[in-house]
């Protein structure tokens, strides 16, 4: 019995939902049936959002556990930093809960989870700048990658480099100064060869995803199950 419950039923759920959602998408039959299809389809994607929400809470608990163990085990080198992480996580969750509570006590105030004042302050002054900083640190990495990895080692790398230089020049006003035709060359590269180059990759990714969907459908893909009982 245990094998059925541990492995067979979860995989059965996957196969049924895959087939059902494909039917909801492609079939119509008549207005009322189509209405039922789209209602159930919306219900299923709402279910996914709800399960994702609980998974995020499990994730939050996981981070809390990880840093708690770091404080106990990793000694002074790591402990103070883990304390900072845990404190900030709890503070953010506390303000969110206050906002959630207020949104039900007096809804007119317009305060909800993300618009709770202290929560918004932490978001605007701690989360957003850090997020932007990590996003824009990429410019430094592009500069060092340009120096180190962008060498014309072989013909393919040389072609990649040549196209990159043309598009870079075309992207800025520099290009226009060197050769007026640079902008139209850049536009040509972007619309003709570039589009054609990405088409097989887009199609291939589509074939790969569908084949993986097939393997899930016939229980040939079990990595998401984890342990092989």
């Amino acid at each position: 019995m245990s094998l059925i419950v541990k492995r067979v039923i979860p995989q059965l759920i996957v196969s049924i939902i895959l087939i059902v959602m494909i039917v909801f998408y492609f079939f119509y039959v008549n207005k009322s049936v189509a209405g039922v299809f789209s209602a159930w389809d919306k219900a299923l994607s709402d279910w996914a959002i709800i399960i994702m929400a609980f998974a995020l809470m499990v994730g939050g608990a996981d981070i809390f556990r990880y840093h708690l163990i770091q404080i106990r085990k990793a000694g002074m080198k790591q402990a103070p930093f883990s304390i900072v992480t845990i404190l900030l996580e709890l503070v953010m969750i506390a303000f969110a809960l206050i906002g959630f509570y207020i949104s039900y006590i007096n809804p007119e105030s317009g305060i909800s989870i993300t618009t709770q004042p202290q929560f918004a302050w932490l978001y605007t002054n701690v989360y957003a700048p850090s997020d932007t900083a990590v996003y824009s640190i990429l410019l430094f990495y592009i500069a060092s990658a340009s120096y180190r990895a962008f060498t014309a080692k072989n013909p393919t790398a040389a072609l990649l480099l040549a196209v990159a230089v043309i598009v870079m020049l075309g992207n800025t006003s520099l290009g226009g100064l060197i050769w007026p035709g640079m902008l139209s060359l850049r536009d040509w590269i972007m619309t003709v060869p570039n589009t054609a180059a990405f088409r097989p990759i887009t199609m291939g990714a589509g074939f790969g995803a569908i084949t993986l969907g097939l393997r899930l459908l016939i229980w040939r893909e079990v990595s998401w199950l984890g342990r092989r009982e």
Partner: protein
Amino acid sequence: MRITKDIFILITIILSIILISIVAWVSKIQLYNPTRPLSSFIVLLFLLIAGYLSIHRVKMGGTFSVRDIAAFNAIEEGIARSVEMGRPIHMTIGYGSISSSMAPQYIAGLGILSHVARMAGKYGAKLITTLGVPEVIASVEELVREGYASAGKPELFDPVYNVRYLTDQQFAYASAVQATIVRENVGANIVVGPFYAESLIFMEAGNMVGAFQVAGTARETQIPFFVLVADYSFIGEEIFAAGAMASGDKESLAAIRGQDAGKLLSIALILLGILMLITGYSLTDLLNWVWKFG
């Protein structure tokens, strides 16, 4: 091809779809969704059937050869080398939700993770798996435990050291992963799954400590960074082929022929479409045909 039970079921499914469609067409029932071209449904059925038939052929003993994917073979080499240097291995499959349309890419990443975990067990390497997909924390923990157990070294598995969930927020995840790569001085850095802007962050962090890097994604915008900076890279759908190879199950690998069938179909349709242009017919309009009456 002997008609076995499953082929018989497959044929009855196909015949019943065709039969129901004919009956619906004759009696003017709006069977298919009027806003969705029928060609997409037919292409989907074709790919699923082609994939299933190739699996079936292998089940019946058929064999086929698979083009070598250098990046897949490089994984074992990278792990062995970093164990010699006494440095841990790092792998990550990305951030986000598995209930998004990136699910197939996360699962391909999980497939390769099970291979990496087995190699880690085989060479006795310390594996650090960082991830930002909350729904699969449990699956990743068990895959890594399974990897060590299958090599007879269950004692090497420590859930807190081996599996680190770092929030599903893109750049908090990226900042923690780049720090992990540098501070743990990883020897091999394996990055496979759907990646967004943070792809180059992981590649540069790996480069800072001179790690051996194998990376791949099917998200086109990030492929160039992996191709340029990583030692070996999977391009686009190669992550799905590698995921199937990693499962070590011949029949899953056979499904790749379904992908190739799709490519042959595309080549044929493009050629047919161009030929039809000469005669004035347009395959493009045919592909847009919608099941509608009046």
